[in-house]
């Protein structure tokens, strides 16, 4: 099996919204270099699970151990640990009042204390990789959805994170723009980035996932490498789900 070090270990994670229990005890391990793809019906808790990983949602109970530190502990400085966890959102969430290069250098300059030139050079390098160097001085309102999402990805990468969390990164995109974003993500996976991806893109899961998990009613009901996951699903709910989406 994989003997790489465990990057994120989730133990018995529970999350309530008021009285509604959304996560009912999730256990998971994400190892360095893994691409964990999380799928499930809407309302199953998969996005909540992802958002708990960097504490955007505060877990009600359970622990999340990231690089050896339990980040659910209220005594730790979560902001320090978040710097190491990049996140990409369904709605892109680029800073509307800043242009592309400012979006990308704000964190590195303010938080990582990089000097301005270094941060800009690094941002330009990343923009070239995703084919958007010519948009460095554009504002978010001037970009297409696909371009926004690619910028959002490189904005997170500019912080040099150890893991990237993707929350349905292609769900808000027009169909013809899905490909350009998935290409960037595939390239990232091939370069060995550790990723947790909540998505409905089964092709992506099959192609680059190292592990696919199915979340249903707040628990992980199936977890397997993609080949086995798609060809030989065991859980009846998963079989039903796959028959609908494939």
């Amino acid at each position: 099996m994989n003997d790489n070090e465990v990057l994120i270990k989730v133990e018995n994670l529970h999350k309530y919204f008021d009285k509604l229990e959304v996560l009912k005890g999730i256990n998971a391990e994400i190892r360095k270099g893994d691409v964990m793809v999380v799928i499930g019906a809407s309302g199953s808790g998969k996005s909540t699970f992802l958002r708990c990983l960097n504490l955007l949602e505060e877990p009600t109970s359970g622990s999340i151990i990231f690089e050896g530190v339990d980040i659910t502990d209220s005594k730790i400085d979560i902001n320090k640990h978040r710097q190491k966890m990049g996140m990409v959102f369904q709605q892109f969430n680029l800073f509307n009042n800043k242009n592309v290069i400012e979006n990308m250098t704000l964190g590195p300059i303010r938080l990582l204390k990089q000097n301005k030139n270094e941060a800009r050079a690094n941002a330009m390098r990343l923009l070239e990789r995703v084919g958007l160097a010519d948009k460095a001085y554009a504002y978010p309102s001037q970009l297409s959805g696909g371009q926004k999402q690619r910028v959002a990805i490189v904005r997170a990468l500019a912080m040099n994170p150890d893991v990237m969390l993707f929350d349905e990164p292609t769900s808000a995109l027009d169909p013809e723009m899905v490909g350009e974003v998935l290409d960037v993500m595939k390239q990232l996976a091939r370069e060995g980035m550790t990723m947790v991806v909540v998505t409905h893109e089964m092709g992506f899961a099959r192609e680059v996932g190292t592990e696919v998990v199915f979340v249903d009613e707040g628990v992980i009901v199936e977890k397997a490498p993609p080949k086995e996951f798609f060809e030989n699903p065991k859980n009846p709910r998963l079989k039903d789900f796959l028959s609908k989406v494939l």
Partner: protein
Amino acid sequence: MNFLLPISTAVSAVAADAAESSGSDNFFSGLWNSFEKTFIYQDRWMFFLNGLWATLRIAFFAAILGIILGFLIAAVRSTYDLHLRGKKSRNFGHFMLKVLNVISNIYITIIRGTPAVIQVMIMYFIIFANSRNKELAAVLSFGINSGAYVAEIVRSGIMSVDKGQTEAARSLGFNYPGTMFLIVFPQAFKNILPALGNEFIVLIKETSVAAYVGIAELTYVGNLIRSRTWEAFFPLIAVALIYLAIVMLLSFLLKKLERRLRRSER
């Protein structure tokens, strides 16, 4: 007068002349007379200038105080709404936030629920009863009043910024204050500028209430001269025109600022 005209026409001409001279000469000389009484006699235009200066001073410092108070209150209220609404406080910081939120709510309720003129009178006759600093009483009173309205405007601005902006900044590792100052406030400010401008226009005109307690600002001066000259037209119209000019200038500047801020997006 034409003495060669027949009597009957001459009589009617006299009547017409008299009517004309009292109608126009008297009217214009009367007008000049009251203008002279209002502005020139004893250098009364200086009164207006001093009154204007006092109005601008009071409005300016009250606006500054209003902005500071408004931002603080708005920060407390929106932080509370985002983090603590409906939750149990778990530590001392949460407890303090809860207390501050209650104080803020009481402040807004009282200030918005009572007339500005009563607030000025309370400040002037009760709190500043033993002080000679009339203008400070006015500045504090209008600043505290404006702060309540600014607070609600700023809060609406903070709420108008998409939650995703905050989440993106937090996910990069920015703390809550950093997120507010770098990401949320600049966008909120752009959204609330028209409402904020409106509030300052209201504030400038509301300072006229200070005349009620005898602070020598513009309205007071206009009324004072009206009572000395027994002429209402020039003092009151002049005061109205001066307020109008200030407000028009302010609106012009605000529109310019708004346009400049919008430019960064397009």
